[in-house]
């Protein structure tokens, strides 16, 4: 610990500003948790007049929410699978090679999350219109997979760079062919990076709203359902419950991905966008 020399402690104003900043980042989410139990159903009144568990039951019985959740999970599963395949192929190709156009390809992979989502969304929408492709689950997946590739790519390419090429050579020297080396040496070594990348891609797709508004047509994913409620609130208590559910669903894999990355590599590479 470089900076621990002399065991100095931080000035009080600095500590206060830092802790204050973190509270600013986290208190709003705690507030949603409180609101999910509020008995008030037509305004955002604070403090809540009373607390109840009723809304969880009401939300559980809502078919439109189940449909939206089902669509979100299907879309996230499909786009994550595509992203895992394309992302690891790209990572395998780019990890230890130098070739003409390599920089442009790595830029192309990052571009879908580097440029504002609205650009991706409107481009895809107008392209679907031009090509007369009707909006469906497939068009949503097409958009999502495009920006999920980079999540898998980032994680897997870092793992490939860390894997000594001597392992592959050793496998070949021992008589394994390319496919056996892939199955018994390469895949086991990139497995956890692939898993972390996949989970991040899943979380990204599950939560995505900007591109989805352009590619979804009449269907509602869970974020689209929420967006509709946010713009014109009709059923505040149900929205609160759904919000709490989304927090729970997204936090769990993230913490898990963090722990997995830390355990596998000692330092977090997976979490960085």
């Amino acid at each position: 610990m470089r900076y621990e020399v002399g065991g100095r402690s931080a000035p009080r104003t600095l500590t206060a500003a830092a802790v204050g900043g973190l509270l600013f980042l986290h208190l709003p989410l705690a507030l949603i948790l409180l609101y999910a139990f509020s008995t008030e159903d037509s305004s955002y009144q604070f403090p809540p007049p009373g607390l109840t568990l009723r809304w969880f039951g009401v939300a559980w019985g809502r078919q439109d929410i189940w449909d939206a959740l089902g669509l979100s999970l299907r879309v996230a599963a499909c786009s994550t699978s595509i992203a895992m395949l394309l992302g690891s192929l790209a990572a395998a190709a780019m990890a230890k090679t130098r070739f003409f156009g390599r920089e442009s390809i790595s830029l192309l992979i990052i571009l879908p999350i580097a440029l504002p989502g609205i650009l991706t969304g409107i481009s895809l929408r107008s392209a679907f219109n031009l090509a007369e492709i009707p909006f469906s689950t497939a068009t949503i997946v097409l958009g999502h997979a495009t920006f999920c590739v980079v999540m898998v790519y980032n994680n897997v390419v870092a793992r490939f760079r860390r894997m000594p090429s001597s392992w592959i050579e050793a496998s070949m020297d021992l008589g394994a062919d390319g496919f056996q080396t892939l199955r018994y040496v390469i895949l086991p070594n990139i497995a956890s990076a692939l898993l972390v990348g996949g989970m991040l891609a899943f979380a990204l797709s599950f939560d995505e709203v900007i591109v989805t508004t352009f590619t979804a047509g009449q269907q509602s994913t869970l974020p689209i359902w929420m967006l509709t409620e946010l713009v014109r609130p009709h059923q505040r208590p149900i929205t609160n419950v759904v919000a709490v559910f989304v927090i729970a669903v997204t936090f769990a894999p993230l913490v898990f991905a963090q722990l997995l990355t830390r355990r596998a590599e000692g330092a977090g590479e997976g979490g960085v966008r």
Partner: protein
Amino acid sequence: MAGALQWPLRQRPGRRISTALLLRPKLLLALLILPPLLWLGVVYLGAMLALLIQSFFSIDAFTGMIQRTFTLSTYAELLRPAHLDIILRTAAMAAAVTLASAVIAFPIAYYMARYATGRTKTIFYLAVMLPLWSSYLVRVYAWKLILAKEGIVTWLAGALGVGSWLDALLSVPVIGGAALSVSYVGTFTVFVYIWLPFMILPIQAALERIPQSLIEASADLGAPPHRTFRNVILPLAFPGVVAGSIFTFSLTLGDYIIPQIVGSSRLFLGQVVYLQQGTAGNIPLAAAFCVVPIVVMSIYLSIAKRFGAFDAL
């Protein structure tokens, strides 16, 4: 491993293919990169190019049909006062959000980089990372609850006896409004909240890289801590601030959800793009508006590069 190698060497299926591939590394490379390249090239770049081309088309004022002949008239429309207003308003908001994020982020990053150790450091790191990955919509929604007229801010201001301050803030022309949730102050707060982690992380990375010896040298040469901070730490951390500002600026330019949920009826660039392509059906104008953030960001990036921001990423 043993089970895999029980095939007699020459009979193993696929061996011939794999040998053929391994002997031609360029072919193998091409086969690996082709599927992702095709996907991104066709789906993403193809769609982007199609959009850019449409920005050079125009819409017939009478029939509402898109005319597919090359023209710059759509770009000229961007310069109409109403449109120019929207572009300037969005850029001003992005600049304000960037400035505020830097001010709030710096102490957090500084504490993380120079004082937090061991467990505290892990907790800080996770606390900054988690919001990045948790639901964007839910985080915006939280602020709809907070900023509502009947919400916690009004209640808190009343409880602390400073309700009149809040009213004074809301009565300021332009940035105020009927309630925080329908004012620019509200939009601004939510933008800062949502993009803050993007600012913290690069600053923290830049601060981490400052060698302790530089700071000791400055102290040895007689500089009091505040001078060391101003003349040594701040200049070295600045590329990190610029790197963070790339995110906060670009993300604010392109966002259309936040001003739609928390904000006044005066539109931002993203909302105009959304409306033009949707209800108005004016894809050429929407496409031309899309080019604005691309151009602004290209200029911004070339300036940022001079400040060494890319080394701080």
